[in-house]
């Protein structure tokens, strides 16, 4: 049973401590496991000591999302590949992510939150951020994708020639 008034202190990889309600942390499979299985003292969960590298800035965003979604049903309804869609992000979540677009490192923030959601096992946040990245990619050309993801083309000339050859008939 979850006691909503119970508080949990999380210590980030850069040494900051944040105390939050158990009502929020119940959505994190990792934190719940840490509390129940790992016998942490005084409900203090040192994130860095248990191989979760989440910094203070990222954790604040995670907590902001958890606060909005504190009443979401548990367990999180997992969908099969065939049922997944990227166009059903709730309005609050869309606005939450759009706020990062004004930040210089908005793409890095997205990667950091995706990674944190995965490490902390917060499935709702993980799906929402993965959908956000998928929506940035969907419908883009290969060159645009490289720009968005900041990736270099590392194919050899021979491999590129092969790709062009394979696609020549349908691109003409």
């Amino acid at each position, binding site marked *: 049973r979850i006691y909503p008034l119970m508080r949990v202190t999380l210590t980030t990889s850069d040494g900051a401590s944040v105390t939050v309600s158990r009502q929020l942390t119940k959505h994190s499979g990792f934190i719940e496991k840490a509390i129940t299985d790992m016998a942490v003292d005084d409900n203090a969960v040192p994130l860095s000591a248990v191989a979760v590298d989440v910094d203070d800035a990222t954790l604040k965003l995670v907590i902001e999302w958890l606060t909005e979604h504190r009443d979401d049903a548990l367990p999180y309804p997992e969908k099969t590949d065939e049922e997944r869609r990227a166009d059903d992000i709730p309005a609050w979540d869309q606005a939450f992510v759009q706020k990062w677009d004004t930040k210089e490192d908005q793409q890095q923030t997205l990667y950091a939150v995706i*990674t944190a959601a995965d490490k902390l096992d917060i499935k709702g946040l993980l799906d929402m951020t993965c959908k956000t990245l998928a929506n940035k*990619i969907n419908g883009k050309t290969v060159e645009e994708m490289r720009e968005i993801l900041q990736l270099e083309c590392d194919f050899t000339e021979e491999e590129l020639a092969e790709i062009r050859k394979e696609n020549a008939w349908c691109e003409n």
Partner: protein
Amino acid sequence: QLLISEMASTMLPTELWERILSFCDHPSTCALSKVCQRLDAIVTSRNERVLNKCRSEGITLPADAILAHCLGNADLPLDARLLLAHNPFGCCIFPSTSTVRGFNVGDNEGRQTFLRNEEMEKGTIEFTLDYESIGIPRWIVDGIRPKAITMAGSIQSCRTSP
């Protein structure tokens, strides 16, 4: 310790990329495979895993030649993962998908003639299938046409050899 400003898409592990891909449409997934070698490997691996699952569950798949062609072309809306739940063919479209190596393209109102490679030495066995009547869309026939012409050339040389 990693700071947000140091995060990059290259740091996302394969499992996370696979989750992201599960929300991408088929043309975008195909395009992603052309971005860099790592994404190409992730997309290819994912497609192969879905196809293996289809096979292990006894789902009828199109011939490998058609699948390989469709999976490599973003313009063709055949998605490997959708084959599992929504096999678009719903029936066995080839006498044996493992032995079909090529086919002739005939202009007989949409009917195509398939050749079974295993029978080449004894003489060619031909199969005539009406694609459209068994639900294979026209774009697939159009999509495999260049390959078919190449294969038809090699089959012709088999026929004429002593």
